[in-house]
């Protein structure tokens, strides 16, 4: 499979060429163009109940699509996300996994297993989602952001504004805290933030949908 990400950083999309016999798994409605000879199978996202969990709790779709090349020549497909932003490909080793925030997942190679995990009460209260998606390797996972995507190596702890965390390696722990004292949290506009502890990588998005909605709402009438 040859894949390339074009349109970065504002309108990124994944351009993939599937070799004969290859399959790619992606979330609902991710396909924007494809060769007419590709086969599409919609499957429950990891099984019926698992799929239901992922839809209502993990912010993902109930169904995933499997696009398979059943011909004997390479066929192309492009996959995209609903928000304008960046996409990155992450190689997950065997036995390793990556945690994705709700809505970040776009597509993956077929051996990657997608699981829903409890993210913690605080995570839900801070509107980061009660559940997170854990993608277990081996394989490649593509996830995207609203806005630009920043990759950061953490050693110790790091503070990320709520609604800006996209993905993190599973050994990291997330805690919620106030941005500053009571005064700066309320008036500084930051409110609650997520404290990420551990050693590993995290991915941050430079824009947030709730931020945009918050900007639009007072201007609506």
């Amino acid at each position, binding site marked *: 499979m040859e894949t390339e990400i*074009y*349109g970065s*950083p*504002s*309108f*990124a*999309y994944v*351009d993939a060429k599937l070799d004969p016999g290859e399959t790619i798994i992606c*979330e*609902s*409605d*991710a*396909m*924007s*163009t*494809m*060769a*007419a*000879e*590709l*086969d*599409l*199978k*919609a499957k429950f996202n990891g099984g019926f109940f698992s799929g239901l969990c992922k839809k209502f709790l993990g912010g993902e*779709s109930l*169904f*995933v*699509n499997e*696009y398979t090349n059943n011909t004997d020549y390479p066929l192309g497909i*492009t996959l*995209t*996300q*609903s*928000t*304008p932003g960046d996409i990155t490909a992450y190689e997950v080793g065997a036995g390793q996994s990556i945690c994705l925030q709700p*809505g970040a997942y776009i597509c993956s190679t077929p051996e990657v297993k997608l699981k829903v995990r409890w993210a913690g009460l605080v995570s839900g209260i801070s509107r980061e989602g009660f559940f997170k998606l854990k993608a277990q390797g081996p394989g490649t996972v593509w996830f995207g952001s609203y806005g630009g995507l920043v990759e950061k190596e953490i050693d110790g702890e790091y503070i990320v504004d709520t609604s800006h965390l996209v993905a993190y390696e599973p050994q990291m722990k997330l805690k919620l805290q106030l941005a500053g004292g009571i005064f700066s949290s309320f008036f500084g506009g930051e409110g609650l933030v997520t404290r990420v502890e551990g050693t590993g990588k995290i991915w941050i998005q430079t824009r947030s*949908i*709730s931020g*945009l*909605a918050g900007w*639009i*709402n007072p201007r*609506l*009438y």
Partner: protein
Amino acid sequence: MDTQIDNGPGAASAFIQLAPGETITSESGAMIAMNGCQISTTTHKRKSGNIFGGLKRMLGGESFFMNHYTAYNEGGEVWLATTLAGDMAEVNVEAGTKIVVQSGSYVASEDGVEVNLDWQGFKSLFAKEGLFWINLSGSGKAIINSFGAIYTIDCDGEYIVDTGHIVAFEETLSFKLSKAGKSWLSSILGGEGLVCKFSGTGRIWVQSHHASNFGHSLGPLLRPRKQ
């Protein structure tokens, strides 16, 4: 006419340099800066058409009026841009071929290009493209815009483009609404629903994102409308 498109794919703008006496026609509201040009506003192309052309264009999602920028003796420059974030691309309209452009994606064109309303059938409604299209014929360059990055696909045979992602296509191609893959159930459950299947030989301009999909992820967070 020399065109340079900068700041794509997120915030594209077109910088056009005109030789003395050259004219470029654009939809109203597209100009952000200019120098050394004279603007005239009409409801039709300068040498042909009439007021009905303007009315037809409104149906096509374009503006009623069109602006014509004509460079003075030292040549002129015009900067064009659009409201939504996205990309712009230059297409070459060649004599004998026509390019069908999604309503709302047309930005500007040279003098030699005819801009008319096009009808692709009621299927356009289901293709989330709007009922009317813009038809470019004649010869010259035209500029189109999109929500998302623009990329081209050269179709030879059949190709599938998801509804809402078509920006423009050559008229040698025809499209019909179809399912993605072999079964209707998979297509609907898989969230794709109806897709556009192009057949023939020609070029398709596709946008990577879809404004409605972005709107749907933003919509639930916005305040409900007061009745």
